[in-house]
């Protein structure tokens, strides 16, 4: 069996750095298994968040060799044998200890989002919805809230000041899912997305989509339709039409 060389970020508060651990491997191991082995045998107090170990709860997000990933779904076989593997906490959120960060930003944003306001049910007390009308929203509902999309989003990754005015990709697809929900009757969510969630700051670089472990098309299916809705609701189409004509006349 191979021996892995792990560089794990350790420390708390303000001071930290990578500590090297050598770990005996087993076939089929994922990064989280190796972290657990370090915890059980070499560093009992190594802090790491995890729950399901099956890619369903989204707790064990980390930056592995610099890339945002779920530790439980990253197999060790992915890496070249013999080379050290770095494991660091997701950087966009305040650091607590070792691999654990304070992700409460996401829970605050979740609370701010205007919730579903369903229309009344059919006379029999149930709803009729067609599968084709909910396919796209079901894609958004696959989100496991690992917050890797939030971590990689450059609007907040290096700009702490934007956190106040920007909700991030996770909550754009949440908003899109509610907006497209066949039962929803709200009309104020687009305004929220524009003014409070700061969708204008997103310039669709698709970093979020690339790191999504559920392969949700965050940008194409969520953010872009939301941006279009904002444009439709807030910029009078007739005015825009005139503006465009005007500029064309000028250029000819």
């Amino acid at each position, binding site marked *: 069996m191979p021996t892995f060389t792990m560089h794990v970020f350790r420390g708390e508060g303000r001071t930290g750095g990578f500590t090297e651990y050598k770990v005996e491997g087993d076939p089929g191991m994922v990064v989280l298994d190796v972290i657990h082995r370090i915890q059980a045998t070499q560093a*009992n107090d190594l802090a790491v968040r995890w729950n399901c170990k099956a890619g369903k709860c989204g707790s064990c997000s980390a930056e592995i060799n610099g890339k945002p990933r779920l530790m439980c*779904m990253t197999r060790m076989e992915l890496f070249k044998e013999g080379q050290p593997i770095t494991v660091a906490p997701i950087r966009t959120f305040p650091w*607590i200890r070792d691999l654990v960060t304070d992700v409460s930003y996401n829970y605050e944003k979740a609370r701010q989002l205007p919730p579903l306001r369903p229309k009344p049910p059919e006379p029999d007390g149930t709803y009729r*919805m067609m599968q084709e009308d909910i396919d796209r*929203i079901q894609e958004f509902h696959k989100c496991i809230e690992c917050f890797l999309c939030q971590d990689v989003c450059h609007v907040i990754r290096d700009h702490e000041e934007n956190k106040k005015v920007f909700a991030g990709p996770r909550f754009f697809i949440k908003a899109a899912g509610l907006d497209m929900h066949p039962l929803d009757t709200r009309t104020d969510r687009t305004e929220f997305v524009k003014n409070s969630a700061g969708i204008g700051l997103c310039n669709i670089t698709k970093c979020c989509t690339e790191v999504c472990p559920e392969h949700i098309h965050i940008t194409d299916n969520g953010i872009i339709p939301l941006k279009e809705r904002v444009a439709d609701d807030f910029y009078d189409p007739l005015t825009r039409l005139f503006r465009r004509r005007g500029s064309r006349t000028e250029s000819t």
Partner: protein
Amino acid sequence: MANHEYETHEHDVIVIGAGGAGLRAAIEAAASGVSVGLVCKSLLGKAHTVMAEGGIAAALGNVWPEDNWQVHFRDTMRGGKMLNNWRMAQLHAQEAPERVLELERWGALFDRTKDGRILQRDFGGHRYARLAHVGDRTGLEMIRTLQYHGIHQGIDVYMECTITRLLKDGDRVVGAVGYWRESGKVVVFKAKAVVLATGGIGKAWKITSNSWEYTGDGHSLAFWAGADLIDMEFVQFHPTGMVWPPSVRGILVTEGVRGDGGTLKNSEGKRFMFNYIPDFFKGETADNEEEADRWYADKKNNRRTPDLLPRDEVARAINSEVKAGRGSPHGGVFLDICTRRPADYIRKRLPSMYHQFKELAGVDITAEPMEVGPTCHYVMGGVRVDADTTQSTVKGLFAAGEVAGGMHGSNRLGGNSLSDLLVFGRRAGLHAALYAKNYSGALAVDTAQIEQAARQMLAPFERSGGENPYAIQSELQETMQTLVGIIRNEPELKEAIKRIERLKERARKVHVDGHRQYNPGWHTALDLESLLAVAECSAVAALERKESRGGHTRDDHPYTDDTWGKVNVVLRFKDGRVEVSREPLPEMPAELKALFQERK
């Protein structure tokens, strides 16, 4: 010792545990107009409910109009080998449909029938296709729906907070004490009523589908506070967990694979389940492959495939095949859907399974069979509760979901867990709120109890040298796996109890390094106490029940015994020891008994 510093929060009701049952309880209590605190061991939305795959059982009758609560009730009781608390099973079957429709009103999007209603899928032990589902990620949909509904109901949520003791004032529970994971500081909750919704005990076994949180916290909190536990011998080994590679051993493979057409095969390529149909289910189970295959489309004229016998039967059958040398290369059996259903159908119906096998085992389930074997999944036993109110035998203490006992008897049917969470979560919230409203006298907590709990929490830091908590946990898991597993007998159970006793001794000497801030070594050390308590309870109850039934198989008492079918094994905590007794089951009324006469 000097007084410990701690913060105190006060609520009418606190709910411990934020999976499906806890969230549903908190929502209902808040709707009753009382102040509610919801305490989660992890972050909100990460509880084990997210792992539930197949669906929520509810007799909506959308696919088979013949279905109704009576049929669901009957299936549940028969699945539990008639040991269920009949009243719980009745309430569950009656109220599950409304709870599912309510989730839809709160935004859940279940897969649809062609006419736009909630689609239902087949599952083991259910006569009709009954499980409302979203592909194979129903639990995720459920917890997100409850979570996003819940955060707008004025509930105070306390995340990453572990409760270690309940507080009592005389004979009633008046709060709880625990610690913050992040800071390691002690926290006290004063509450007129406490709802336990802490899930199960699966982390006591080595091969398990359960996460680190499943250390039997609620079971032991209730037990130490004087509440009765029942049915602790009944542990469900889900027949299909992953077996290879070693690091994923135990991860769940949904019963939905079989519900959607998959079959179990041995190394000879035989569908072996036809050899394991017990007399109890002969009348309703197909005895040949042709009938079994026709059953998926025509349930009126055909009997159910034996691949979908209740989980206890299937787990034992797999165990026997492997023992007889007809297992797969890595000690399981084969689960084949690739030769039975088209690849597109598999990817659409079972996306998480496709993903899970592809990423973790390098297996394409649309082209090759899976290798599967039993994995510890669920405990039927738990806190003895009043069926209607969910109140335990201790005043002010309520329990719902996996931590409560009785609903599932000796074996739970797949899909009945999510519906259990909703039905009894709601009832727990409702009745805890009512109890809190009628609470009389001052709400007083005893500082001495808090001080004692705090001292116990901090003890592992103060010992020098000593034991590694992870080593003890792993030895306990090995003990339970080998001695209190699917097949049990008296010498092995006695040996298990002896070993647990020794591990308890060693656990008192556990030492942890470092400090209190986010220290998993310390958390593991503290979890050991409850884990050892529930392991002991389970082994003691298993030794007591001298028969085989549901999730309890004794090779020294291989048959089901009618006298044992009339009693629960009840456990109480007396003078630091487990006291065992046998007490009669509640008697089912005649009109419900009649449901079992109609067809055998």
